């Protein structure tokens, strides 16, 4: 596959090393525009007539992504991956919740009004059909110039909460644990049905990319999470989250766990117990210093000592060298807060001395 990323071969090696606890990936959250001419002259589509078209019209959105991808920079290890996300947790919509585009940054997921407790994967569900239409159209437009990322499906308790409501899910873990575990297994089963079909559409020669946290691998790749875990005990995490995460790590070739917020750190031991998990991403949360801050060095060292690679996000240029000096140069995916290609070049100069 020959993409618009001139150094994709080198970046692929960096990613494979990183999944295996070695080396450094230098990238960023999504993209910034490249300097100079686009890779090819793709006309800008007309403005979306409304927010619904912006998110949910596969024709318009694939045109828009094609235009944007032709203008992004893919320096360092920045991936040529089109972001096809349909909200944080679109598996919930596939299983009966509703998606609502609010603005150009946000899609809300509203729980269904009459959820009867049955987790049913309906192939005719309109939001599932949108996933398929959008991914197929994007792949057709891409013509091999870039990859199409897997939308942020999300699994487990987070998806169950989008169907039942957070309160109900949390209460049911106490008063009806057996049904909750059955529902969580049904969510996982649906997840794999959706994920595998998506993989069949978007993979190129078996390789795949995931939209959130810009991850690529020579096989099936996914980001895992359990954001609602900040509300439950460590014991309940091991009962209601860990088994289903473990199944994902066993069925998907490369997995990254998104650890979100200071209150989630208490579950890190249970996360590190996931034998086949490859990496842990750290999101400090609002009001906390971001991923390059020295405050998180010990956390990164603990993750690395637990046999997992790390991903640090929103690292600034001045934080890069101290981060490498303190955490080391093996198993790091550093997502920088780049503002320009010049900054990418500066970061590359620093990184080269650590490779």
């Amino acid at each position, binding site marked *: 596959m020959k993409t618009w990323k001139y150094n994709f071969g080198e970046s692929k090696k960096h990613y494979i090393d990183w999944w295996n606890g070695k080396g450094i990936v230098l990238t960023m959250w999504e993209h910034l525009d490249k300097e100079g001419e686009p890779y090819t002259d793709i006309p800008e589509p007309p403005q979306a007539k409304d927010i619904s078209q912006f998110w949910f019209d596969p024709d318009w959105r694939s045109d828009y992504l094609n235009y944007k991808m032709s203008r992004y920079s893919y320096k360092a290890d920045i991936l040529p991956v089109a972001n096809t996300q349909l909200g944080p947790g679109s598996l919930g919509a596939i299983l009966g919740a509703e998606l609502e585009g*609010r603005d150009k*940054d*946000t899609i*809300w997921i*509203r729980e269904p009004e009459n959820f009867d407790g049955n987790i049913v994967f309906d192939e005719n569900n309109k939001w599932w059909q949108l996933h398929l239409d959008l991914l197929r159209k994007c792949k057709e437009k891409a013509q091999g110039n870039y990859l199409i990322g897997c939308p942020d499906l999300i699994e487990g308790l987070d998806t169950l909460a989008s169907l039942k*409501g*957070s*309160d109900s899910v*949390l*209460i049911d*873990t*106490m*008063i009806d644990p057996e049904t909750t575990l059955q529902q969580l297994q049904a969510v996982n089963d649906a997840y794999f049905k959706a994920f595998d079909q998506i993989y069949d559409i978007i993979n190129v020669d078996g390789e795949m990319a995931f939209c959130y946290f810009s991850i690529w691998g020579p096989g099936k790749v996914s980001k895992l999470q359990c954001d609602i875990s900040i*509300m*439950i*005990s460590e014991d*309940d995490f091991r009962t209601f989250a860990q088994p289903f995460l473990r199944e994902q790590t066993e069925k998907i070739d490369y997995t990254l766990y998104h650890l979100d*917020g200071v209150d989630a750190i208490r579950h890190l031991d249970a996360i590190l117990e996931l034998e086949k998990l490859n990496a842990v991403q750290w999101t400090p*949360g*609002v*009001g906390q210093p971001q991923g390059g801050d020295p405050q998180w060095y010990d956390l990164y060292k603990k993750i690395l000592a637990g046999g997992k690679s790390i991903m640090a996000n929103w690292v600034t240029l001045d934080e890069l060298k101290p981060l490498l000096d303190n955490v080391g140069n093996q198993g790091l995916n550093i997502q920088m807060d780049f503002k320009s290609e010049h900054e990418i070049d500066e970061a590359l100069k620093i990184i080269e001395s650590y490779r």
Partner: protein
Amino acid sequence: MNPILEKIFECVEFGKINLAANFPPQMKGQPGADEYTKEALDSGITPSDIMNEALIPAMNKVGQKFTENKIFVPQMLLSAKAMNAAMEHLKPFFKSGEVKRKGTFILGTVFGDLHDIGKNLVGMMVEGAGWEVIDLGIDVKTEKFVETLQQHPNAIVGISALLTTTMVNMEPVIKAIKEMSPATKVIVGGAPLSQEFASSIGADGYGKDPQASIQWLDSVVA
């Protein structure tokens, strides 16, 4: 303490709602807050004593355990449900005026934000602390806060937000409330907020967690 009040306290602390509830496992098959509150009233214990000697202290203990990470949200929700089961029996006495509430608390998630669990928790805990709670729900427009305040002019207002993108919507709500009623107190809360942010948008209080919100509310009416 009267043994029945002790039982009510225990049911609320551990989230035993009623006889049919199978949680907590160690209290399976036993009456819950529902049955014990009815029994207490039938035996002549006053609604005020049930409120002040059992329900409020029990919810205080629950809030304290939550603050200390000894229990988590599911356990707290069940305690609140047990407390609600008891409160159902007390509602007629609130209406008749035999039992006084500490005040009225109007609560909602700010417009643009659909998150509800933090707001729900605060609402349940505040109610358990002896307040009347008017829950306006999620995605609440400024006009709705103002309109409800006009109907309950002595109320305190609580505004919740979970996102950095929506917490900025609190400021115009506070401004509108203060323009209509400068003396009305407003407390804000939610994961991305801080005391500094709360002060910067003109809020009178900041609720770091449900227990802190209750302490602030109680201090306002003390």
